[in-house]
């Protein structure tokens, strides 16, 4: 807006015949264009969001009109042992998944940046999983993880004499097995972003550092990482939200026993889905959604605060 006003003042054109000043007219135009996305957003995003807050206070089951039950859903959630298990799973995906995927992506980007030989080809290979449908990938990995005689990973383990692993059939390994596929799927995107960030750092800094006799490690610590901070912040937030909302991989890799075995892989989003569309407890599902929303909000704000630019 300020830009328009300034330009307006500078041009100082005369008032046109319709009685409205040029400036008002322009403002009208700008706002009528802006109104479309704003209206769209209000109807598609904000209205359902507020509706969800309201629904979380009701016992709506889809067939009967919703009745206000106030905080009964939240109390039920607090007492539900399954919720706490799911809560733990969700944070495991986040706390283990995000750092591993970022460190891995950075390491690959850092070294790939120096590789000239088949650079584009290798980069494309890393990016490929990001382009593939999550459902298709999940099924491929699901078959990789099978016990003998059909699972490839177990076949390889057998070749090198390591005992067979149950992977997604185990309550201890299943979550990490699925996390690996999620990390792998998101890696390509993170590498590309990291590489763009690395390229944006002016070469002169490195030249100066080398002339001053700094080692590679010191350059990495003192120049690369600090200057890469905006990229890192973006990826941390982006990847955290991704892990907090994980669903496709889990659902597709455990379709017969969704989120199983014994709920050991179930994330919050899958629980919401089941509550809403298997049990049709819409009010209860809305309460879970509000909790997820709050977690996402807190985690994102916290990360922005911790990784903020110190001036």
């Amino acid at each position, binding site marked *: 807006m300020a830009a328009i006003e300034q330009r307006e003042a500078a041009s100082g054109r005369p008032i046109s015949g319709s009685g409205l000043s040029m400036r008002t007219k322009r403002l009208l135009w700008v706002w009528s264009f802006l109104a479309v996305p704003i209206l769209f957003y209000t109807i598609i995003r904000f209205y359902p969001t507020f509706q969800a807050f309201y629904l979380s206070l009701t016992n709506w089951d889809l067939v009967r009109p919703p009745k206000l039950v106030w905080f009964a859903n939240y109390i039920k959630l607090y007492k539900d042992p399954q919720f706490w298990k799911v809560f733990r799973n969700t944070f495991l995906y986040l706390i283990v998944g995000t750092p591993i995927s970022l460190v891995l992506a950075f390491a690959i980007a850092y070294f790939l940046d120096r590789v000239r030989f088949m650079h584009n080809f290798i980069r494309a290979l890393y990016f490929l999983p990001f382009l593939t449908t999550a459902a298709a990938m999940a099924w491929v990995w*699901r078959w990789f993880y099978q016990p003998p005689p059909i699972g490839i990973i177990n076949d390889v383990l057998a070749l090198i004499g390591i005992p067979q692993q149950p992977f997604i059939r185990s309550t201890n390994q299943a979550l990490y097995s699925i996390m690996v596929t999620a990390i792998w799927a998101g890696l390509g995107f993170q590498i590309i972003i990291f590489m763009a960030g690395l390229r944006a750092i002016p070469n002169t800094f490195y030249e100066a550092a080398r002339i001053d006799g700094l080692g590679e490690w010191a350059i990495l610590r003192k120049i690369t990482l600090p200057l890469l901070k905006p990229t890192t912040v973006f990826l941390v937030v982006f990847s955290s939200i991704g892990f907090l909302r994980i669903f496709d991989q889990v659902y597709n890799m455990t379709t017969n026993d969704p989120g199983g075995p*014994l709920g050991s892989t179930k994330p919050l989003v899958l629980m919401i889905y089941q509550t809403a*569309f*298997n049990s049709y407890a819409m009010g209860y599902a809305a309460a879970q959604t509000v909790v997820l929303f709050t977690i996402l909000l807190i985690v994102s704000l916290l990360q922005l605060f911790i990784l903020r630019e110190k001036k």
Partner: protein
Amino acid sequence: MRKAALFAGLLAGFSTFAVNAAQAVEIEYWQYVFDTRVKAMDQLIAEFQKANPGITVKQVTFPYADYQTRVIAANMAGNAPDVMQLFYGWLDKFVAGGLLQPLPKDAFPHDKIEKDFFPIVTAMKRDGEYYGLPTAVRSLALFYNKKLFTEAGLDPNNPPKTLDEYVAAGQKIAKLDGAGNIVVAGSTVDMGGQDHQWWREVLIRQFGGTPYTDNDTKVAYNSEAGLKALNFYTSLQLEKKIGKAGFMDEGQAAFRGGKAGMTIDGTFRLGSFKTIKDFEWGVTELPANAQGVRSNYASYFANGISAKTKGEELEASKKFLAYITSPAAMDIWLKTVGELPALRSAALTEANLKDPIYAPFLKGLEYAHTTLFKDELGQRQNAIDMVNRVLLEGQSTKDSLAQAAEAEQEMIDAAKP
């Protein structure tokens, strides 16, 4: 001028109304997408329209995962279908939500329903009213791989008749590699498939118990019989090693792939198994216990009439429902979909009883039970978890059973309207 126009408009409106009434009624029929079911229904609609020139039926389908939500949402929005298909287990919810009307007694007298249909149809009865009738029903049977039977030195024309024979055959077929991994399963162990129904309605009864009481609202399997049934089931993997949960991902996949000697599955699997080319398979009744007690689990999709349908649409819907639950329609359904007729007279024909594939399923219908699920997926999940606690976490069958019974009771109580 204005008056004349108004009059003309009124006249035009009135005349189209009158013509419509005399000519055609359109009713809508909803079911979920499943290729053969949609084809069979197209055929039934064509036959019905030929016999009833004044009525057109429009078939609308939705993916299974969306189906319930669509029906409920459409009902709220006031454009529900006139005749709809529903799983028997959804009835409580649909009735509570006011989606269905009781079947008019003039067209569907109760004594006739109870005389002609298989007894499992009573699952569609609430407070003395029927809310729907099935075209076809499904039951379970034991599929077996004749090639693996022959290889194991078993008679491929004499499949197991009792649980002991079933276990013995499984042990002969099962093959382990040097590291103790199953290479060929004697029988599949897959609670996520049909095994939870087998355990609930068949094994518990064969070990002398009942899964539920009070119209399936009280969990009764935390008993000695329930424990014996669970011990038997988990021992298939843990002691007898005839199968392993998760082997080849799914039981049906293992059987299809020729890597399992036996599997328990339903009529709905026939279509998929009929395309198997690598080996011959057979079907037999679910094994009896040592005393000869048999049981089975039957289920079905029924067709009901929307609560909002009235007047001539209701008359047309009654006619359509009567047609799709007639022997002629059931015959078409059996040939196209492979599901068994719900009417005794249409099912128990000489030709069907001689059919080596249909006969075991049909015999099963005579003594089948139908669980009145309150939360079908939740109760299934509960049974899966009960077995997984034993197989994966080493919990004792006694504790796992008690935990499952308590959790399921809570689930049933929570679903009460």
